């Protein structure tokens, strides 16, 4: 059962991701990515991480992707422009990129398929992993500092996004 689910979700994730990358219309790309994220959320459930799965759906697919969609619509460039003619370098770049990607895939797959499960010694019972409480406690004790740092991170991102994206008129204020 788990195996079927794994392959189903995995196939969806890979397929959707491939389509994201193979898609010329950014709008579709965003939507397909949401599909991919959904599939990943399924895998998270499979890995006894329901909280992560929920977060994935709500924050990632729900919030972040919406921002993307929002920007795509704001800028209103539905389709990618065709490659400028004669841009041989770009074409060559694609080829090189593809080759490199394949090589990387081979390397990673080769390496990761050699990983042995025996290397990992489960420390805690699996059911504790699913406990939101456990996560919450850890997040606000062990990871409290990191948590605080993220607040600064988000503040920076916020200020930065505002600075970069706001309209010129705002500058009149100085």
């Amino acid at each position, binding site marked *: 059962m*788990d195996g079927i689910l794994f392959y189903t979700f*995995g196939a969806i*994730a*890979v397929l959707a*991701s491939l389509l*994201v*990358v193979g*898609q*010329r219309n*950014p709008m579709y790309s965003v939507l397909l*990515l949401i599909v991919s*994220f959904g599939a*990943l959320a399924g*895998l998270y459930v499979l*890995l*006894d*991480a329901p909280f*992560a799965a929920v*977060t*994935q759906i709500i*924050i*990632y697919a729900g*919030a*972040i992707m919406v*921002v*993307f969609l929002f*920007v795509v619509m704001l*800028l209103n460039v539905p389709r*990618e*422009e065709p490659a400028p003619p004669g841009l041989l370098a*770009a074409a060559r770049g*694609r080829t090189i*990129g593809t080759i*490199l*990607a*394949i090589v*990387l*895939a081979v390397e*990673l*797959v080769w390496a*990761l*398929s050699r*990983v042995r499960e025996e290397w990992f010694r*489960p*420390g*805690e019972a699996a059911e*504790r*992993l699913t*406990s939101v409480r456990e*996560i919450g406690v850890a997040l606000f004790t062990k990871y409290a500092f990191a948590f605080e740092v*993220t607040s600064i*991170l*988000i503040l920076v*991102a*916020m200020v*930065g*996004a505002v*600075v*970069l*994206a706001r309209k010129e008129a705002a500058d009149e204020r100085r």
Partner: protein
Amino acid sequence: MPSLNHFLVLSAVLFTIGTAGVFLRRNLITILLSVEIMLNAVNLTFIAVGRFLGTVDGQIIVFFVITVAAAEAAVGLAIVIALFRHRDTLSPDAFMSLKW
């Protein structure tokens, strides 16, 4: 239950798809999406590894990664908007004035 290898390999494939996207697409937004794919692939690794180590740390790290991804997306999209203002295009090939 699929083994850890399965999840790791899957994440590797997704990661590679993400990297490939950076090269193949000529649209800034899609490129940003490709980076998101990469981050998600890493997330999968974290959760899988955390599961097999039997610790919640993996999930918590994913939580942080999602935050980072959000922050990056915000700044990245802001930059894309700024770029679009200057050139009216989203093709990365249009932005080659700085070179050599």
